[in-house]
């Protein structure tokens, strides 16, 4: 199988995967399982500085980049949160910074996951997306200074 290469195509394949579940429990279980497969963050990033504010559970985000290729590692002490992060990162990781900055991430609605989230969890996810875009913008800015 050829790996999907854009945010849009990766999101599309996730939406298709989730369409297989008609039961919310199976969907939740899958989210939890995806969280368990998340690549662990380096201990150096498990700090207050790298914590996402606005989450009821604790979430840490570690940015990684090589040139304009950007990806993230993340962790949370709550499993559903961790699963949602895994979904988000599966779509966003290894994208070009400009693609991340332009993405609208509407696939979260299509997964029908956002409606299951409590307002605080929704705020937490929004805060995480905002932080990811901030990192991408910083890389974009330093890249344009260099060139």
């Amino acid at each position, binding site marked *: 199988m050829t790996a999907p290469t854009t945010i849009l195509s990766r999101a599309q394949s996730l939406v298709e995967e989730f369409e297989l579940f008609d039961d*919310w*429990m199976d969907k*939740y*279980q899958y989210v*939890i399982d995806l969280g368990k497969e998340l690549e662990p963050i380096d201990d150096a990033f498990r700090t207050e500085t790298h914590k996402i504010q606005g989450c*009821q*559970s*604790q979430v840490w985000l570690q940015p990684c980049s090589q040139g304009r290729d950007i990806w993230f590692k993340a962790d949370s*002490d*709550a*499993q*559903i*949160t961790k699963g949602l992060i895994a979904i988000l990162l599966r779509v966003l990781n290894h994208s070009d910074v400009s693609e991340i900055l332009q993405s609208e991430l509407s696939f979260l609605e299509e997964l029908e996951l956002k409606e*299951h*989230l*409590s307002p605080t*969890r929704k705020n937490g996810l929004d805060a995480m997306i905002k932080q990811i875009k901030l990192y991408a913008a910083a890389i974009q800015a330093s890249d344009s200074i260099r060139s």
Partner: protein
Amino acid sequence: MDTKTGHIETEQEKSHGEISKPIDAAVIDRIRADFPTLHQRVHGHPLAYLDNAATSQKPHAVLEAIEMYYRKDNSNVHRGVHTLSQRATDAYELARKQIAEFIGAGSTREIIFTRGTTESINLVASSLGGMILQPGDEILISAMEHHSNIVPWQLICSKMGAVLQVAHVTEDGELDIQDFRSKLSKKTKLVAITHVSNSLGTINPVEQIIADAHALNIPVLLDGAQAVPHLQVDVRDLGVDFYCLSSHKLFGPTGFGILYGKESILDRMPPYQGGGDMIDQVDFSGTTFNELPHKFEAGTPHIAGAIGFAAALQYVEKVGFDVIQRQEADLLAYATEGLSSISGLRIVGQAQEKASVLSFLVGKSHPYDVGSILDRFGIAVRTGHHCTQPLMKLLGVPGTVRASFAFYNTRSEVDRLVEAVGQAGAMLA
């Protein structure tokens, strides 16, 4: 159960006294019919509302009282000469009288209307604290306080150079009374403690606390937000100096609450906020203030809040604290037994005297995950630190899942809770 202390009889005591039987299901069904919010489906399941310690649902009687006020009597109080203003003022001041009677206050001059417990505590902290505190003086609270009975004291202590002392709480979630006593001294200017813990349900030995403090002439403020839905409180019997409560925890509207204070102390305290209604004469050279209780009530008040709350108290009296306490004691015992049967479940807070609040953790699962899954089963609980971060830290937990019962909850809702918690535990294992 003793209606004042919340004491639940032992088997031996029961055999000597009245036998505490669960309330007939038909009675609870009739009560449930009074609460429109309870009759809806959430995620395809009938709603099981077990978040009563956060806020309670409102009976028809309260909704109707508020609607009638706005439909027929809406007018500003205390100022108008016209008929509607008179009717609104009468209803508003009648509410004060009913509230005074409900908590056993000596007069309506001792009932200050506030936005809720938080504002009541802030009022005392700011007005009394600003008047009496000297550098080095102390205020004594406990480690199980809600943030609203911590932060106002921190603010006034830091302003006046005073020190906030904290009495320990045991692993079971009880006040360490020896530690409390050891921290009472000549420096202590006020004791501010919760009557019932919002996180754990612990009912504190308030008679003992008041006796110990009064022996050293130290006034006592009780945070009664979580106590009044469960216990019949009589402020004069208790001899407490200040008692704070919120309408919305007691089946009344949000944004309204009470500060009870002994008239002798309230009279000496300076106003808290300035504005209309709290003045006697205003001149640019100075202002004289209105009498109690209006001295502490600046601006147009929450008139509908007072009227709605009075209706809630009437409703509670109609149901009766004997019914309320028998039902809640039964639900607490039944839920404690049911949840305890789940492997890996830990109940946080095992005080001898408890209101119908049950905090717990399932294995290593985050409370937030458990709460999210329970919501999918139509079960409303609270998760997190419950605005008691210091207590959570002390107990070494990130937070808890908290189920809190009102008299309109049922054993079948508890059954659903136990089953759903079991499922959540399996999903998150």
